[in-house]
């Protein structure tokens, strides 16, 4: 069966984990890995897994896009580099899945709004943040039932799973996630907190979601909605698990989640990284299915939406 050919930009842990997930996909085929350091372990790993590699950044990929039929690219570099990467690849008709905080394209949480973006033929979708992927589905599940005047999420992350880029730019994580709780989750106001815990053995990613509803929460309907949403996320992140709740106290709904990764390349405790790569893969798959079905044709654009 024909698969849609993909390029991965950024040869770090996320990139390597993506190769594993994309290789398993019935509709995606990882062909290129783009890095900037010829001696990087990530590029060596990619070569070992049968990918073509370049150490010249996205410019090293551009001449091959046409010949190798690349239609989707995943960017796991940085917000700063992403804008340029996206412009160059969009100009060649390549769809961008953005795993950086750049957020040039619309913010995507697959079970909430992926369908809509596929229908709108957007050429760049942003995956927000790990905490966003883990918590926004729950906020959305509550706001579908009744208005949420305030939602707050707390992400506890294993220290070993947080790379230098996130550490040096923690405010971007806070701003991006808080904004997405409102824009995608549907809360009138959103707030995101991140805790980095160095415990050994490393703790599995935990997420707590608090929603304040307008009026008394409709317990049964909200509970059903949350459980349904957890099932949707589990389709692409099997380790997405409800630990406690939903607990109700006045107008507050509290949900306590755990996210274990698949352990493809990243250890299972790094559910935060896994949920990003899984969501990105799921996103690419929906677009790929449409391309293969002939219902979507990607076309070159001047710049991303």
């Amino acid at each position: 069966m024909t698969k849609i050919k993909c390029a991965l930009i950024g040869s770090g842990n996320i990139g390597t984990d993506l190769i594993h997930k994309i290789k398993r996909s019935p509709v995606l085929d990882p062909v290129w890995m783009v890095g900037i350091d010829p001696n990087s372990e990530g590029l060596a790993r990619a070569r070992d897994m049968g990918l073509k590699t370049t150490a010249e950044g996205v410019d090293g990929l551009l001449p091959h896009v046409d010949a190798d039929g690349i239609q989707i690219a995943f960017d796991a570099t940085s917000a700063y580099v992403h804008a340029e990467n996206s412009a160059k690849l969009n100009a060649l008709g390549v769809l961008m899945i953005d795993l950086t905080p750049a957020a040039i394209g619309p913010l995507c949480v697959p079970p909430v709004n992926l369908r809509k973006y596929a229908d709108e033929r957007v050429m760049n979708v942003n995956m927000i943040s790990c905490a966003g992927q883990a918590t926004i589905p729950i906020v959305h599940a509550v706001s579908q039932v009744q208005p949420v005047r305030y939602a707050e999420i707390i992400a506890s992350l294993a220290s070993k799973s947080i790379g230098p880029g996130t550490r040096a730019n923690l405010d971007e994580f806070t701003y991006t996630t808080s904004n997405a709780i409102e824009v995608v989750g549907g809360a009138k106001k959103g707030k995101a907190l991140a805790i980095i815990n160095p415990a050994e053995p490393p703790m599995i990613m935990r997420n707590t979601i608090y929603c304040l509803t307008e009026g008394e929460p409709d317990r049964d309907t909200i509970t059903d909605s949350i459980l349904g949403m957890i099932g949707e996320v589990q389709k692409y992140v099997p380790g997405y698990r409800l630990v406690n709740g939903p607990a109700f106290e006045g107008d507050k709904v509290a949900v306590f989640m755990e996210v274990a990764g698949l352990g493809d390349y990243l250890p299972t405790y790094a559910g935060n990284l896994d949920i990003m790569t899984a969501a990105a893969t799921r996103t690419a798959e929906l677009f790929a299915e449409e391309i293969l079905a002939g219902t979507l044709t990607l076309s070159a654009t001047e710049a991303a939406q």
Partner: protein
Amino acid sequence: MTDFDPISPSARPLAGKEIILHDMCLRDGMHAKREQITIAQMVTLATALDDAGVPYLQVTHGAGLGGNSLQHGFALASNEEYISAVASRMKRAKVSVLLLPGLGTMKDLHAAFDAGARSVHVATHCTEADTAPQHIAYARKLGMDTTGFLMMAHLNDPKGIAEQGKTFEDYGAHTVYVTDSAGYMLPEDVKARIGALREVLKPETEIGFHGHHNMGMGIANSLVAIEAGATRIDASVAGLGAGAGNTPLEVLAAVCDRMGIKTGVDLFKLMDIAEEIVTPMMDHMVRVDRDSLTLGYAGVYSTFLLHAKHAAREFGVPARDILVELGRKKMIGGQEDMIQDTAMTMAKARAEAKESGLLPASSQPERQVG
């Protein structure tokens, strides 16, 4: 006041050392008040502390900038409102704030600076200093007195603390603090960590110590910190702070006076403030009791105390058992959501055990500590 002492303060070993006291009542004390201190109370206490010569006062939500949240509680006013009300009335004292990256942001810091804050504790867990570069750099850009604050310092060894402190110094911190958030450390632990920092930091970089009194060690630990080279000590008048409170500032001032350590504060005024302003503000006596001692003994973040008591009432699991379990699970500052989660999990497990006859109706004592 020390005429009756046969050993003159000037003959004591730490005589002549100068330290800067930093009062925590209006920040750490917010924890003990469930964030419910009014602006008027803040102004009354702060002006009295200023008048007594306390050089630095920390004023924010207990969890610092960005702290107003379901996770940490909502205060009666915004941080900016508290800070500007206090800062505008200070004759000498500088107002400081707390900022935990991941909760507070540079935008929050800017707003605090605009409201009159001129000093900041940028706080990370004791192994995560590298989550603070942008905040420390931004504080320096604003021209603030900038501290890197290593919380739960008992969870990193002296060598590790020294490395983390060096990281803060490299980012631009003027001062590096060893922070005994759990009130767990013993004097030799403090001495080793401050000593290790002193060896690696530049001579002009100051070292500070922030204690909690959960094991009754606030004063003793502050003294060994001074002996090992610390020049800044956090404390709070009457000990108003999380857990069994911070090092009681007026007591430390009295001890320093006896030892010839210069603090520049007026001891009798501080005693009066403790008696007449702070103690009457307390909702519960801030002291070493069963639960706060558990924090110190098990090495648990002091702020967890009241949250654990709330969860204990809600889910029928003793607060001490919850605190010990949190210590065992290595939960750190900021993970207050895990208190309810842990209590719910324990309640479920106990209900199941009771049903299967494994546990008597009353809970069994646990011997495990973190």
